[in-house]
């Protein structure tokens, strides 16, 4: 239950950053916080009490008390996608900074492209 609170706490902090801050890099940090919280929530949904990791590393492991492998497989691919999309967002922020000389969204909006 503690894990749920931690995961949704991170998501709410990320949403706060996205709503209040105007700086582009700060907003990308908020997106990355939301990513982390969502991954933590998905993994903690698949957890089983007193369970073991879904790897048959030694003989004699009981497959009935292993944790759910499906959320782990999905989160594994989601983490790798998130780094590529974050890199693309950072590239857009760098180009906007070169073009306008500022990272503030409120100032960028007024100027013509």
């Amino acid at each position, binding site marked *: 239950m503690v894990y749920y609170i931690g995961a949704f706490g991170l998501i709410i902090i990320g949403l706060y950053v996205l709503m209040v801050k105007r700086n582009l890099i700060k907003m990308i940090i908020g997106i990355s916080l939301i990513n982390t919280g969502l991954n933590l929530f998905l993994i903690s949904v698949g957890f089983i009490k007193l369970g073991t990791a879904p790897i*048959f590393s030694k003989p004699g492991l009981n*497959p009935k008390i292993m944790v759910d*492998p499906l959320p782990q497989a999905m989160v594994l691919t989601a983490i790798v996608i998130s780094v590529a999309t974050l890199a693309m967002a950072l590239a857009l922020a760098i180009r906007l900074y070169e073009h306008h000389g500022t990272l503030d969204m409120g100032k960028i909006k007024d100027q013509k492209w």
Partner: protein
Amino acid sequence: MKKIIAILFLLVLSYGIYLSINSIPFGVSKTKVGNYYNLNGVKDTGANNIVTAVVLNYRGFDTLGEVTVLFLAVLGFSTILFTMKKKKSDNMPTPPSLILSIGCKFLFPFVLLFGIYIFIHGHLSPGGGFQGGAVIASAFLLFYLVKPSEKSSKKSFQLIESLSGMAFIVIGILGLVFGNYFLSNFLPKGIAGKLISAGIIPLIYIFIGIKVGSELTGIIDRLMGKNNEKQVK
């Protein structure tokens, strides 16, 4: 004012989240498909690591789409940064300190070897292509920290990346020829627990490791790439 409205909205939202996660129990088994994978995974695929079996065998087509998304994101990244202007401050970068340069030169081959170990043993122990590729990219990050003005060939990265991506699809089509469906496991499964087992799973994971490693290295290289242009000039 804006902050107060945002905090009020988030308080309402967190009360709704609290009501909804009360109905999700923590720590009990919820899905039947996860149970099926745990009970029959080794028999079906021959891989000891069930997560690897799900990623590459049960949901291999999903992984192909994910690798495509990764490729498109990196392509968009390099397109956006294609015509970078140079910064006005044209001072030379300070050379790295002695401890950093010696330490990174010493660590670089070991980190590279560790990454290769991770994605070769992906079907036996925790790890796999994605993690191994990330470790390889961090090894190259150390290398670029030591020599920021090193000229790297972007062509060779792109070539390696495209070839390994193509090899993934070729293995899938071979599964269509020799087996029944796309990405079917047509090689013998062997004894679970040996290094050469589980059919096509280690092969695909090796290609994914090379692909992810070269893509992430390309991102780091492009972001650090200011000094290369200066040398050309």
